[in-house]
């Protein structure tokens, strides 16, 4: 019950005129960057960090929350009309959504995506309102050993569930962990991997790495492939309204997508991609029209779009309650908390309840704004794609330079930005996913602190991670996530042999 009072209190924060303005700027920017290729929510939040430093924390997070939600709405628009998902979470939407657009049913695909996103976003935000405080109660029982186990689980699941190759996923994780080690050790003041450079004592900034990998690395990759790239926009034709039949076929996938998306987002299994795949498979199994799948089935748009919005709300639960980021965007939001000297986690709900509940309340408001912004205006958003790509990427790199330079007014950082960009280019060319690297970069230093704290308490005895049932259970789960895909692969190849 106390959640409801706290939420009402949160609405009084979120409905303050200034914060309403930030929420609307956030959802507007979020939709725009969701539509535009080459720029996503993690990058946008990274670029905004220096500019928002002088803001009230509550306003900044209301802005970031709007961007995170908005990007998921916006990316479905390009996935459907252009077959280029703005974000990875809309890859599945593109399959049938784009097929619908080709048949002149783009408007219906956009509508079921927007309404489904609204339904799922609202229900999942409501779930977040109640799950987050419950997680807090659980988290208060956690010691360093449990936190370390949880971080190991998050790192394992981020890799094993994402991408095609487990070794390459782990390569990304370990590159992130290694980058996170650069700088002064917090406990002893020992400089590690700085090679005498004073600029590196504070570590390689999270923002520089995120912007380098996402903006510069992406731009370099795209430019190298530009000549080989072709895309076609499909205009919206015919009736723009969903028929009774469309509604009938959409509402169950919306609800199932929500049920699949929120828990997976909330588990430290992270990200919005997996639930979209699961939702697609589920709908394909349950539908009466399996032959339409892949050729423009409305269920295949409704379900995954609901799932990715629900997952985004889910991701916020471990972020706010445990301080545990499970997606690149959540990692950047954690970096934003750290910028304000706030440590997300169970205590946050007591020390900064206005901030937390204001953010949660503004997510409800943001969802309503997004429905209004996206349902009638989808055609307008697509016009954003008329910006010539050379100018778009020119702008992205100008903002990348701007964001990195204004962090510390340091030219060293600008040079480093290019270096990290080249690393990002190499990773993309070699099929190493980039997102796990960002999550590992943020989680690494936290995991090290918890590991060392746990080992100091146990006086160096590593059995501390097994003697606590909670920690042991979480680690066993991590091991299972690691081994199950391997075993399944083994069985499949054995089956193929016999």
């Amino acid at each position: 019950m106390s959640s409801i009072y706290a939420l009402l209190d949160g609405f009084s924060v979120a409905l303050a005129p200034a914060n309403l303005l930030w929420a609307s700027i956030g959802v507007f920017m979020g939709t725009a960057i969701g539509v535009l290729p080459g720029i996503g929510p993690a990058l946008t939040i990274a670029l905004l960090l220096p500019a928002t430093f002088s803001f009230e924390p509550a306003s900044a997070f209301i802005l970031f929350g709007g961007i995170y939600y908005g990007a998921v709405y916006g990316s479905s628009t390009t996935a459907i009309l252009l077959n280029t998902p703005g974000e990875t979470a809309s890859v599945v939407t593109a399959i049938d959504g784009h097929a619908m657009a080709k048949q002149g049913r783009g408007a219906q695909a956009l509508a079921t995506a927007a309404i489904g996103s609204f339904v799922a976003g609202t229900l999942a935000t409501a779930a977040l309102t109640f799950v987050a405080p419950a997680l807090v109660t659980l988290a208060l029982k956690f010691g360093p050993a449990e936190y370390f186990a949880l971080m190991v689980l998050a790192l394992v699941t981020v890799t094993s569930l994402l991408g095609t190759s487990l070794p390459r996923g782990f390569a990304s994780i370990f590159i992130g962990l290694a980058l996170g080690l650069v700088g002064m050790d917090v406990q002893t003041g020992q400089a590690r991997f700085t090679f005498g450079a004073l600029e590196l004592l504070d570590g390689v900034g999270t923002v520089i790495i995120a912007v380098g990998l996402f903006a510069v690395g992406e731009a370099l990759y795209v430019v190298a492939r530009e000549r080989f790239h072709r895309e076609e926009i499909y205009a919206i034709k015919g009736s723009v309204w969903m028929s009774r039949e469309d509604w009938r076929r959409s509402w169950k996938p919306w609800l199932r997508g929500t049920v699949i998306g929120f828990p997976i987002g909330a588990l430290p299994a992270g990200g919005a991609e997996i639930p979209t795949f699961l939702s697609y498979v589920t709908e394909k199994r349950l539908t009466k029209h399996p032959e339409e799948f892949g050729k423009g089935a409305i269920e295949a748009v409704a379900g995954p779009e609901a799932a990715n919005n629900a997952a985004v709300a889910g991701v916020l639960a471990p972020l706010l309650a445990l301080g545990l980021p499970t997606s690149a965007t959540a990692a950047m939001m954690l970096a934003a908390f750290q910028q304000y000297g706030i440590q997300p986690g169970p205590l946050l709900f007591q020390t900064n309840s206005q901030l937390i509940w204001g953010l949660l309340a503004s997510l409800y408001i943001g969802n309503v704004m997004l429905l209004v912004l996206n349902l009638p205006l989808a055609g307008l958003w697509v016009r954003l794609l008329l910006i010539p790509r050379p100018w778009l990427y020119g702008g992205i790199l100008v903002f990348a330079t701007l964001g990195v330079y204004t962090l510390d007014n340091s030219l060293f950082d600008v040079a480093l930005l290019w270096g990290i960009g080249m690393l990002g280019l190499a990773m993309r060319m070699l099929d190493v996913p980039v997102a796990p690297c960002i999550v590992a970069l943020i989680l690494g230093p936290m995991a090290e602190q918890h590991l060392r704290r746990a080992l100091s308490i146990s006086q160096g005895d590593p059995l501390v991670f097994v003697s606590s049932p909670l920690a042991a259970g979480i680690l066993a789960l991590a091991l299972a996530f690691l081994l199950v895909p391997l075993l399944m692969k083994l069985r499949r190849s054995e089956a193929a042999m016999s």
Partner: protein
Amino acid sequence: MLRMTSYKPYGVALGAALALLGAAMIWVISLLPDTAAYAAVGPKMFPRLVGAGLILTGLAVIREAMTTEPKDEDEIEYDVLPILTISAGLIFAAFALERLGWILTAAVVFFVTAWAFGERRRLATIAIGLALSAGTYLLFNYALQLSLPAGILRF
């Protein structure tokens, strides 16, 4: 132009690079002076774990590259020239930003990037680049109280 025709050599190179990085980390961290108390949980342990992880990952990547049969669609072509062009623009920015100032430097980054992406309308690109850089300069220096360098355009 760079043609990445086969998965194998690049995968092996990636794995070897990761393993080398891990080994180098373990070596570099062992050069640090020892801290007296609690050596097990000192500042060296976690880097060693990460280094060991990198070596194992590198070996796994090599194994994967050796056992995966290359498919036809693995052949991907990349243009190298535009990568170098954009890189030159960014490195130029790192040197020129505080001397030339934000407005001119950012306009150069914009122009060079757009050029690399194949944009050939010079005047329009220069105009948009200058508008963007001047706009951000005014926004950051007057509305957000962050200081971007004025450089040679002092006014």
